[in-house]
């Protein structure tokens, strides 16, 4: 089958790549664009390590064909912080609350958290757990991740504090 040329914007950078049409977005991000922060833990859409945002919505990039991202905006973990010098509040909270151990699920977790907090800036603990239920972690038992996301919500909405 002939290669197909797609245009995608990833973390604000525009790329034009010629790819086999059956390749997943996760593969193209990792192998062609060398953005390896997106991890492949199962390649079956079960573990969430490959979670990225397409036009602001979270998807499992291993189950998304790269051609589906044609002319769309993709955000990966590498593009979450505004500049390389600073961290996004979710990233800060993950560091400070001990939500990271081996780190393999971390990028996907943070992208799911980003999607959750964009939709629901003040989630309850149950809503956070529901928002993460597609992301598996084998190290932390999730509690510190849940705590970090609650903390990030407060950092992102300081005005709501004390209400």
């Amino acid at each position, binding site marked *: 089958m002939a290669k197909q040329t797609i245009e995608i914007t990833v973390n604000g950078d525009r790329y034009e790549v010629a790819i086999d049409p059956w390749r997943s977005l996760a593969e193209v991000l990792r192998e062609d664009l060398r953005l*390896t922060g997106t991890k492949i*833990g199962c390649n079956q859409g079960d*573990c969430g390590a490959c979670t990225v945002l397409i036009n602001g919505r979270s998807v499992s990039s291993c189950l998304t064909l790269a051609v589906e991202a044609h002319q769309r905006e993709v955000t990966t973990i590498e593009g979450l912080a505004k500049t390389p010098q600073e961290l996004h509040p979710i990233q800060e909270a993950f560091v400070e609350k*001990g939500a990271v*151990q081996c*780190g393999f699920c*971390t990028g996907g977790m943070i992208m799911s958290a980003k999607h959750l907090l964009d939709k629901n800036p003040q989630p309850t603990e149950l809503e956070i757990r529901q928002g993460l239920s597609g992301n*598996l972690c*084998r*190290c932390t038992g999730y509690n510190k991740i849940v705590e970090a996301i609650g903390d990030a919500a407060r950092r992102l909405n300081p005005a709501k504090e004390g209400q």
Partner: protein
Amino acid sequence: MKNPAIIGASIPRLDARQKVTGQALYTDDLTMPGMLHGAILRSPLPHARIKRIDVSKAKALAGVKDVITGQDTPQVKFGNWRLVPQSQDELPLAVDKVRFIGDEVAAVAALDKETALRAVALIEVEYEELPGYFNVEDATAEGAGLIHAESEGNVSLARKIKYGDLEAGFAQADYVREDTFRVHAVSHAYLEPCSSLAAPDEGGRVTLWTSTQVPYIVQCLLASTLGLPENHVRVIKLNTGGGFGGKMELRKWEFCAAFMALRTGRPVKFTLSRADELAFGRRRHGMTIRSKVGFSKNGLLLAKDFDVLLDGGAYNSMGPTATFLCGNFGAMLYRYPAYRYLGRHVYTNKPPAGAMRGFGAPQALFAAETQMNMAAHDLGIDPIDLRLMNAMETGDEIPEVATISSCGFKESLVKVREMSGWDVKRQEKRPGYGIGVGCYSFISGGVFNWFNTKYNFASAEVRVFEDGTAHLLTMATDIGQGSDTVLRQILAAELGIGVEKIRLTASDTAITPKADLGTWGSRVTLMAGNAVRQAAQKIKEMLIPVVFGHFDLNQIHDIAFEGDRVFSKARPDKGFGFGECVYKALKGRRGEPLTAFGAYTPRNKGLVSPAFSFGAQVAEVEVDRQTGLIQVKKMYTAHDCGVPINKMAVEGQLEGSIHMGLGYALMEDFVMKDGRTLNTTFLDYKIATALDMPPSESVEIDTYEPEGPFGAKEAGEGLVSPTAPAIAEAVFHATGYRCADLPITPPKVLQGLGRLKA
């Protein structure tokens, strides 16, 4: 000499920033110019003789650069028990026989993954199928064929422990019970699938980047299987996405990558799929445990006979260690005047079982702690009281096995009783509500040297510089547990400088000092921590004379290292900044860098471990009596890990343990048919999600382990064990159903309640 700003502080892991930004590199993230992609052909049969392999079609496929079978390799057997060569029962690729579905038969290196997989499908293998044995009973039955010709009746090895007068103990006992427990195999389910990349190096040398817990063991075994001097093999571990015991051996794809890199002159990478991991990967041993225990009528333990059959799968893997440790864990928590253990490791035609978090403890303790709960019920004694009566204490000896140098077990029991509200809740008669207890003890690394290393068990090199910074080099292996941070905390506390001032180089066998046996058995903090301390102390010995000389101090002064300064404790003004002190020492040494080596090897520490941790856990559950569904409402833990070096890391380990212990108790299980694993996705092999995890409350009991760095010992591995027996007891308390065969599933609960026929 503990610095509270560093030791015991909740310092965020130093690698966290790299990990939250996606910058942290794992093996599969690497690519190299000219790199080939590997794929493995595995056996489709559980037990068969290989009659013929034809690789000609695979070789002819465009893009294929190399195809190997066992015949192409040096055929050197390997296994981690180098001390017992007959236990080394694996070949890098099968030669005459395959012994499980998934046994590695051939490998391909090609220009891309798709071509490699296509080539694998073109390899033709003719097998002569042999009878398969899929459980320990069939494998050890009279007349069963041998899976390995060298074994006796498919028992690959037996371990015995015996002390005290067993007969007399049982004769004296007022209450004796004998039970059989069955525990199942589960997956490590680390999130990062195994990945290895090998590149040829000048002079016939090879470098392997690999996702491993044991770079030194991989280096040695890879060298022997390749027929190279050890120094020709360099193993580098990048970030490793969890291991839990599943990455602590030389693996076949590591050999294939290195062997084919040397043959083709090009880098070769193998990365496993999740289906490979679940269908063919290592797993925790399933066991059949027969335990007989005798008590006096007032509840004192008198004797125990512990007989265990381990379902080892097709190869020994880490089974010999699990067999040995399982026997120790059977009698580590309580004072047993007499104890006998017989553990037999049995070959079956299934994927090999290996080391997994707890290393024999989750199985032994499910049986032992459940039996303790059963006995408490029969004797009419509260389960916590029964434990308090028999609990180990500091200074207790396990005859000929170990001396317990610190023990906070009784304190853990008292604390968990209080924090869980045990005494009131245990009396509650709410339908479906239950509360139960389980306990654990664990090792802080092993004293045994089955790997037969000629080097120290743990080593560290420390370099200090005139800019006030330091460099720590160690082979100790962070696979996510946080040792890269904890070891820097230990060095920072010794040198009195900030953790951020310490550069770390870890787990590169060509650069970091020989040796370290890797991450397993909760050995790193104690062993590598002691090695770091020793190196730091040598550095301090180089710096102290500078202060004495410069300030002409009286001999009675003592020198402190704190706040980036080196100074007299009595006269803090007499001293320098750390960097300035290094500068002056360097001048005095005519430019010879300040470098020191530290090491740790346990000596005269019995047969098991230099230190033991203890703890108690309480589970509260609600069981739906219509559906049998079990909901864990809350977990309470009190544990003795000595002095925690990093409190937040210890909490993280504990919470992760509950995740794994809860999965073991309630939901994780391999579904197998005739040696084939049927659930090979995370949709079918269920690990707990964020929604399944109960809230948890924990307390660290204050103890000080004299053998550990700053009083520290094991944390977080032993804790995987008490969860299943605690939940099982809570389910019994709630329903009257007593589980003796994990996992505890709704159908079993309903059968136990008489609502469902078996």
